């Protein structure tokens, strides 16, 4: 590999570690050559075309260890920040693996962990409106209170539609005015948390929607709904919603 390729090769993981998010992107990245070090050490250049650092103890053409790579990346970053004190820079990557509880009951008060460490926030110090901060630098993963309310409302609306279909024979196509809630008030005795399981009436391992379709056909004497029928999905949603918090017990007869 040529030195330049090596540089790129090293620089990319270092960049990944650093979590650099460019404020702008440019088509056609400039190729710049890192000037060779007088001591023959490996030199690493930053993409701004100016900042360069060298990796002590690693000769040109050799591969540094990850620790060495991180050290040089840190050096470059510090140098760059020193040169650009006002730049918006996201520091540590936001860990969003766990859903964090919202702090405060205010509309649009984002949790502290998502607040940027540096700078005055993406809004640049503007006061938050009645719906809270609209965006603070991050687009993806930045769920606001308003977003969550909308999504929850949509889900509940879907569950409500499922409730309506569940309680109305004509809605799901039953022909003898027998609706699901006649045998399953409040979706009792549906046990959605036990699917998939061997369902005796079907003679095979089935999912909840298979059983819903079987019940539509048999006790309710209707035609089964297609797998992607929104009514079927809505009924599933309603049934599952009634069992919120119940532990999964897959396969339980």
């Amino acid at each position, binding site marked *: 590999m040529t030195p330049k390729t090596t540089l790129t090769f090293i620089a990319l993981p270092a960049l990944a570690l650093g979590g650099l998010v460019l404020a702008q992107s440019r088509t056609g990245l400039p190729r710049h050559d890192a000037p060779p070090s007088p001591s023959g050490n490996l030199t690493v250049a930053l993409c701004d075309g100016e900042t360069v650092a060298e990796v002590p103890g690693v000769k040109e053409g050799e591969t540094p260890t990850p620790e060495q790579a991180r050290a040089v990346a840190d050096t470059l970053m510090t140098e760059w920040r020193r040169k650009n004190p006002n730049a918006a820079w996201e520091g540590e990557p936001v860990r969003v693996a766990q859903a964090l509880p919202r702090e405060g009951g205010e509309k649009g008060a984002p949790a502290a962990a998502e607040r940027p460490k540096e700078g005055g926030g993406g809004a640049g110090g503007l006061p938050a409106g009645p719906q809270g901060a609209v965006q603070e630098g991050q687009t993806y993963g930045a769920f606001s209170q308003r977003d969550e309310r909308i999504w929850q409302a949509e889900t509940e609306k879907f569950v409500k539609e499922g409730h309506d279909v569940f*309680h109305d024979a004509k809605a799901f196509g039953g022909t*003898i*005015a*027998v609706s699901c*809630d*006649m*045998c*399953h*008030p*409040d979706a*009792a*005795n549906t046990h959605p948390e036990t699917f998939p399981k061997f369902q*005796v*009436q079907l003679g095979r391992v089935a999912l909840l929607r298979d059983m819903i379709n079987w*019940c539509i056909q*048999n*006790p309710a*004497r209707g035609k089964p709904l297609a797998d992607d029928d929104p009514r079927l999905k809505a009924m599933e949603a309603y049934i599952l919603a009634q069992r919120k918090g119940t532990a999964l017990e897959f396969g339980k*007869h």
Partner: protein
Amino acid sequence: MTRGFKSIETKHYAERDAFFAGLGRVSRRSFLKLAGLSAGIALGKGLVTPHSFQLVEVADAAERFTFAYISDTHLYPRTLNDRFVRAILKAVDDVNNLQPQPDFVLMGGDLAQLGRKEELDLGRQILKAVKAPIRMMVGEHDWFLDLGQYWKSLFGAESYSFDHKGVHFVTVMSVQEKDFWTERGFTPEQRMQTVAGLDNGIQSRFEVGEAGREWLKNDLAKVDKKTPVVVFSHSPLYKYYRPWNFWTEDADEVQAILRPFEHVTVIHGHTHQLLTNRIDNIHFHGMLSTAWPWPYAPEGLPKLTIQQNRADPFDQFDGCGDGSVDVVESGLVNALYNLWDRNPVTVRASYVASSGAQEAPPRTKLPSY
């Protein structure tokens, strides 16, 4: 039989007539002599099946008499739904082929599903085929379309009482509801649809109501405290599960009116499941529905209840049935649940009176709800 409503099973019951006529009323001892081991086994299983074979006729003490019931038939017009019609016809056949015939047959309420004239007419027509005299009870499905007008015109007063062989029977209208429809501007059909749904929470909870309690108090005032009392009620007259109206709001007051009597039994409908309870001196027995089974409520199930199996919806009769009630010497009752397609279950007075210590019916090993 009668015009137009013969079930497909009817012809075969003619054969059973011969059997029942032959067997007659057999006392326990002589039957055991006759049947050898088989009766003992049947006894051990707690099987009493007057509906099929009258394998054993068992009484804790001498029996006074028996009445049968058909309950919660929930009829739609036949052209819309013939499945419920088939079920009530099966129950009528069962009851007509009891040997000996019961003293009377109780219709446990909810004859119609949406209280319509054609549904009530259909039910009345079918019930005309019952040989024994019928005692009617009203359910919420019969009542709330027109607040009982048509039902009363067909069947008379919704609350009444009568004495029979030393027992005081009182049928009490226990599915009154406080007005929830006027403020919402419901039409009668909407009101009925709301009441017909078990889990919507919009309708009020059932109650006997103040007028009803007054009526009951006056009726019972003339009855001696030692006379056995059997109450027919559609709602359970106790508090089982409020969200599904398995509930009587003024149950405490009603039970207080019943408390002074030594032997009180409540036979109730509405719950479509095997249900047994005892509160102080009062025994409560639920009736099966012919139309469909309700699952057990998430909480509040009385612990005396022998739970029925989870019904298999492949078979429209599973979990459904009819039954009969033997009034025994003491004035309490043995309730027989004639579950179609399952082994019958008898819940004896001694079981309830001893709070489950004696003569427990065999518990099923199959999954319950």
